[in-house]
């Protein structure tokens, strides 16, 4: 009797594991603040490293995109270290657009890949064409983790506010950079590519070492970007790419060059990059396809010659 009562008063604390890959880079403010407000323990997998990447490559189907391989590597790292792994599923944001089918599939992909381990996933599903929006999805998730509806709703509202504030800070910082002198390079890449410590960050670091200022396409006002994207492409179906293409329209004239950074063989980027290359003729463009195996030496050479072209163009214009 006594034990049961104690049990009820102090339910075993659950820990949620968050893979630091794919949507993490878009939503981490939202997720972390949501769990914090609800008082739910969570851990985040470490930055991508060679070991995580290799694990992912091992688990993934050969042809899967590098980003999803990395994701599986992070999930593998979390196995056994938490009670639930957070694997959200998104298919559509309604009129705003849809997403790459990888995000439709990711929940079931994880479920059917790790059949040999014992694990639980916590999921939320956003499918606006079937009226599953973010708020509803978060409340469901909170309830699944043992919180009440109103607690979960409250936590979601707080988390949303936090996310907004944080994103505004980042946006304002970038605005300052946009007005800086010197060579500015616009990077058009999914967040999980450019912000990944193993994949994109080394490139950002190299760019800075070469004395240029990187500008990020993903740091942009979404609404404005979606409208402006039509200047470059009218029928683009994928929301995340549309946002980046809108950023391209918005920032293009303020930068000296553009880097399209893509993980191999990304479905949406395979088409979108080609559209960009064919339509944007007034800025140098570097199309970087990353497979996780390139050495820094090779990258450095490519970046250097790209910057040289830009410098050459600039001195031409000044003369």
């Amino acid at each position, binding site marked *: 009797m006594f034990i049961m009562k104690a049990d009820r008063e102090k339910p075993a604390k659950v820990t949620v594991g968050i893979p630091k890959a794919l949507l993490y880079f878009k939503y981490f403010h939202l997720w972390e603040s949501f769990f914090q407000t609800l008082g739910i323990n969570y851990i985040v997998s470490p930055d991508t490293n060679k070991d995580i990447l290799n694990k992912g490559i091992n688990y993934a189907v050969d042809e899967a995109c590098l980003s999803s391989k990395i994701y599986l590597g992070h999930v593998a790292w979390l196995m056994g270290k938490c009670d639930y792994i957070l694997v959200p599923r998104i298919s559509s944001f309604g009129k705003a657009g849809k997403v790459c089918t990888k995000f439709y599939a990711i929940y079931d992909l994880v479920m059917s*890949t790790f059949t040999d381990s014992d694990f639980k996933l916590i999921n939320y599903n956003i499918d606006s064409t079937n009226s599953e929006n973010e708020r509803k999805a978060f409340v469901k998730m909170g309830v699944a983790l043992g919180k009440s509806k109103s607690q979960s709703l409250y936590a979601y509202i707080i988390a949303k506010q936090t996310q907004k504030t944080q994103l505004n800070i980042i946006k304002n910082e970038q605005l300052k950079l946009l007005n800086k002198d010197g060579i500015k390079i616009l990077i058009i890449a999914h967040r999980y590519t450019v912000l990944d410590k193993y994949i994109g960050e080394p490139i950002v670091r190299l760019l800075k070492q070469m004395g240029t200022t990187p500008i990020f396409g993903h740091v942009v006002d979404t609404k404005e970007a979606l409208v402006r994207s039509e200047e470059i492409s009218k029928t683009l179906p994928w929301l995340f790419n549309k946002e980046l293409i809108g950023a391209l329209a918005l920032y293009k004239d303020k930068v000296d060059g553009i880097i399209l950074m893509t993980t191999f063989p990304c479905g949406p980027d395979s088409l979108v990059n080609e559209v960009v290359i064919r339509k944007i003729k007034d800025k140098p463009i570097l199309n970087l396809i990353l497979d996780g195996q390139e050495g820094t030496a090779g990258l450095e050479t490519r970046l250097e010659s790209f910057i040289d072209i830009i410098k050459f163009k600039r001195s031409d214009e000044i003369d």
Partner: protein
Amino acid sequence: MTDVKATFPHLGNYFVPLEVLFTAGIEVDYIVPPPITNRTLELGTRHSPDFVCTPFKYNLGNYIESLEAGANTLVQVGGACRLDYYGELHEQILRDLGYDFRFVNIGSTKLTKPLTFYNILKEINPDMTLKNIARVLPVVLKMIQYIDEAEDFIRKNIGFERNPGEFDHTHQRFLLEMRSIRSKKELYNYYIKYMNIFKSIEVDKPKKPLRVGVIGEYYTIMVPFSNHFIEKELATMGIVIDRWMNLTNSVIHDFRPEAKEHIKNYVTFDMGATAMYTIDKALQFAKKGYDGIIHVKSFGCTPETDAIPVLQNISSDYKIPILYFSFDSQTSEIGIKTRLEAFYDMIIMRKEAV
């Protein structure tokens, strides 16, 4: 008649109903793309981005060859996945190549509703009439169904014909003569007649033949050239080929709710494009005790790549071998043959062991 010469990329043998739709329904000339050859793929590949999925490259090759054949109005549809964005880039590439044409991107529309269909197709020919399209559309839909039924029968029997070539020959005649049919009644009689001919073709079918199910991505599965005529190859080994995917089952009818229900032990959500059908049919073939399954897709196809771990689970739960093929523009013919032969040896050994 207008001076519109419309064209649409190849998809299996559906150029027959498409030609009827365009000429009789929309009342414009229709250019059937020249049959797909190595040149088609080569042209398409040369002007396409590197790792775009192969249907994009084939479609582009078809457009170029149709333009060469006199087409001036190119039609593209959407529907799912990357296909929704094919059109804009196709148009851009062809313009950059200097071709002069009109591009009609009809997006994703339900094919079966005359009125919506009418409003969109008016873009191809503003003078077309609702009356006409309402008369022709049902004929076109029936044609698709009959072609699908006939081809289903052929796949299951062609491997056993006594006189090699008889099925192919009759199939070609069936398609050719169908092109002149304009009424539902005539079409029905025609269909009955041909099904009788198909059924009367002599076959030597063992009591328990080997049965192989073919599953996979929409385009690759429906365009024999793009899957290196794998069904034919299998048939010549004396195998019953079963393939569910066709236009009738995917565009005319919507089986998604059923599929979702069937596979709920394996998959919770829709994984995109044809992945659910692929998994559903794999499970069905497995449950029916087929000897093997072949999965085909174009290189890098995201939804079908994501379906593979699920297929692997079905394969191990039901002890059914699955052979995976991923085709791109440089797939080697020899590699395919070798893998098919090894697969055949394996399923026949398993059968004999039972």
